[in-house]
């Protein structure tokens, strides 16, 4: 029983990472109706910038703030420069543009900062809590994720700007007709997603160590978590992220014979099975399309 509890806790700790990323994924999906495959690489690059600032002596929270702001601006720029030209292109072409961005960011980070792992400081310390089940940083991560979730919920549901962004994503034509500057809403969405990604990266790096390929596996699980929770529900994404973390750990530990080697496969299969019964994710809204 103790092993089960420990693996669940370890799974929740991992799950906090995935939940962070899943939130960013769903966030950008809500804002721009696209899935950004380069989200992980953008987060990784932002984290490297934060690391570089800290290495140059900038205090942690100042570096944090600078990085988040820079990431926001970068997100807006990426939208205006890279995706404006292809916004009317077929969706698959846009996906290829994301893939290109992924490639550029990953390769550049490796060239600039090399591939050795770098430790990243944590503002929460590493004191163990709950009898060494979870440590302070992991608890901090969960806390920040929930805080961000709350903030986003309030923003999208409670403010006019949030409403305008949702309208622009859901129905650009109608939104324009009521005077919403759709172009700028999209850019804002990109900026926010980039900033969110930066925060996720800064939280994740102390756990997994910073290196150019840090986010590849994490994005995969985060994406799975977002889909499991339902792409229309930020709360669902967070739950999905935690669920994926626990599922993956339990599959690896308790399913005999195949569990260890096929951990990732099993986790994904379980998610697909869930999707079979709830094709829009656990908490997603069912979208009815009219003929």
């Amino acid at each position, binding site marked *: 029983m103790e092993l089960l509890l420990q693996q669940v806790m370890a799974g929740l700790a991992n799950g906090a990472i995935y939940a962070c990323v899943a939130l960013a994924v769903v966030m950008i999906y809500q804002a721009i109706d696209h899935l950004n495959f380069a989200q992980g690489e953008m987060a990784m690059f932002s984290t490297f910038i934060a690391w570089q600032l800290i290495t140059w002596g900038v205090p942690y929270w100042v570096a944090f703030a600078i990085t988040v702001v820079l990431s926001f601006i970068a997100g807006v720029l990426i939208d205006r420069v890279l995706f404006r030209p292809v916004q009317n292109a077929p969706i698959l072409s846009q996906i290829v543009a994301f893939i*290109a961005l992924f490639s550029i960011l990953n390769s550049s980070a490796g060239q600039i900062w090399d591939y050795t792992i770098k430790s990243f400081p944590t503002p929460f310390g590493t004191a163990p809590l709950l009898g060494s089940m979870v440590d302070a940083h992991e608890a901090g991560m969960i806390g920040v994720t929930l805080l961000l979730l709350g903030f986003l919920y309030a923003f999208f549901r409670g403010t006019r700007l949030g409403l305008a962004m949702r309208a622009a994503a859901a129905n650009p034509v109608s939104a324009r007709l009521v005077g919403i500057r759709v172009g700028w809403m999209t850019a804002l969405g990109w900026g926010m997603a980039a900033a969110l990604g930066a925060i996720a990266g800064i939280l994740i790096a102390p756990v997994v160590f910073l290196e150019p390929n840090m986010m590849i596996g994490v994005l995969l699980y985060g994406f799975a978590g977002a889909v499991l929770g339902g792409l229309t529900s930020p709360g669902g994404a967070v739950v999905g992220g935690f669920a994926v973390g626990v599922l993956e750990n339990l599959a690896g530990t308790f399913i005999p014979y195949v569990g260890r080697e096929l951990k990732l496969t099993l986790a994904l299969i379980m998610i697909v099975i869930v999707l079979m019964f709830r094709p829009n994710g656990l908490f997603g809204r069912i979208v009815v399309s009219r003929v």
Partner: protein
Amino acid sequence: MTLREDDIAVSAAVPIQRGARMRPTPRHAVIAGFVVIAFAVPLIASSFVMFQLSEVLIYGLAILGLNLLTGFNGQFSLGHSAFYGLGAYTAAILMHNYEINYLWTLPAAGIVCFVVGFLFGLPALRLQNLYLALATFALATAMPQILKFHALENWTGGVQGLVVDQPDPPDFLSMIDGDQWLYYVTLVVVLLMFAAAATLVRSRTGRAVMAIRDNPIAAAAMGINVSLYKTLTFGVSALYTGVAGALSALVVAFVAPDSFTIFLSISLLVGLVIGGVGSIPGCLFGGLFMLYVPNIANSLSNGLAGAIYGVILLIVIFVMPAGAAGFVRAASAQLSRWRQNPAEGGHR
């Protein structure tokens, strides 16, 4: 994210005349010319170039498989590296463990992949777009793990992979070498399968498949058995990519789990888009892109090869958002407009 019908460049040139014999058109001349050149190339090119061209044809065939599913039927797949790998391993295992003649491994790989693709298509019926993307992503990630799984090591060779004996040309053709022979085998198989795909697309079945992509509800209302066609398309698509994989096992003469990762799926998707979604000849252009552009990026800079590849990709997408086929279509449409209205200088 939805694959709307205007998102996929509609291959408008689908003739609706029924039973009418097709008059020779410039398009036919181009295809004939291409075939003649393709058969003649080995006479002047080196073995290494033949090897590369074989790979281009193979990638083109694999992309065609993906195109049938995504371009013509609107089902998004990130999992085709799994079918490619499955086809390659089927061929390798049959040759390595059971000493089956290489030519028989091609239909065998096709059948195995058709069955697996069809079976995968069944649960996929319930999934749309991004959710389908995740399911196919799961398939692509599972394949290398399964191939490395220790219980299957006796068949798959585990992490070490399997070496395939490259077939020799038959005795009556002893003047050509192994590379040239494999090139001809690949060329014939690819041409046949491309022709089959083109025929399929122009047939009633093809129109049904495309109707499902454009408007599944209307298609169902017209009496098309949407579930059957979707799963069949999945199977056929897997078959095509699987045969491409089998050919690659012969040409590369080696299979290993590291050859069939999710990055291959992504490359196939990139090749599909660059060639032109919904275009059959575009697949070959996609194959050319898949093989040569990484080499070009690498030659410009070893350290930043990935970044340069990304930049090239962006430039191509900006210039040709609908892929090479879309570009050619737009260019020829512009040309015919100029021809029709020479006095007005081509402006409407």
